[in-house]
């Protein structure tokens, strides 16, 4: 069964550094999402992406964040200058155009020191 994959599984970075989190959505899915979960808190929506542009973003998704679909398979989340509070699990999700259900990847655990 097709799955959403994410790399790396873990990333440790210094505050102020740039990180890029990578996702490969399910191949026939056209809607892509990033969510994050800070330890002990809810899973929070960051951004949705369709047809090579952002379709919706949350208040968390400020100028430090960007998303890109650099080729036909990858979907990336970039954090330009990481802060301590960016430490979280970051989940990528995707869905088909004709279905409501979002399917999630295994997540990337980001630790900012």
């Amino acid at each position, binding site marked *: 069964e097709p799955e959403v994959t994410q790399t790396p599984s873990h990333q440790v970075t210094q505050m102020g550094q740039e990180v890029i989190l990578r996702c490969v959505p399910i191949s026939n899915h056209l809607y892509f999402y990033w*969510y994050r979960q800070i330890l002990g808190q*809810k899973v929070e929506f960051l951004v*949705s992406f369709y047809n090579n542009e952002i379709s*919706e973003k949350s208040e968390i998704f400020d100028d430090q964040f960007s998303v890109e679909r650099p080729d036909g398979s990858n979907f990336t989340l970039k954090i330009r200058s990481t802060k301590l509070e960016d430490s979280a699990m970051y*989940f990528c999700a995707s869905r088909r155009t004709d279905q*409501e*259900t*979002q*399917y999630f990847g295994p997540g990337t655990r980001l630790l900012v020191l």
Partner: protein
Amino acid sequence: DQQVKQNSPSLSVQEGRISILNCDYTNSMFDYFLWYKKYPAEGPTFLISISSIKDKNEDGRFTVFLNKSAKHLSLHIVPSQPGDSAVYFCAASVGYNRLAFGKGNQVVVIP
């Protein structure tokens, strides 16, 4: 953001018995509701969903009930199995858009 609430953070149930998880929401515009299951170090796995035009959806051992007037949904797992031990998240959306999640319920099924 308290749009989706899951109280009773943990639940222990004997194998073979019913597990009932509850979820309340405040946004009356939500029209699609999902339950996800999550094991440690994994992403949320889709379990079952229901749209606001229905009040019940069943898939094998899993049944979701929706009470729109009470803004309440519940997930029933029967019979519960040890492999069901996980964190269960309730989520909701308006249309096919962003998901709002509850905080999750830890379920432990005792063999």
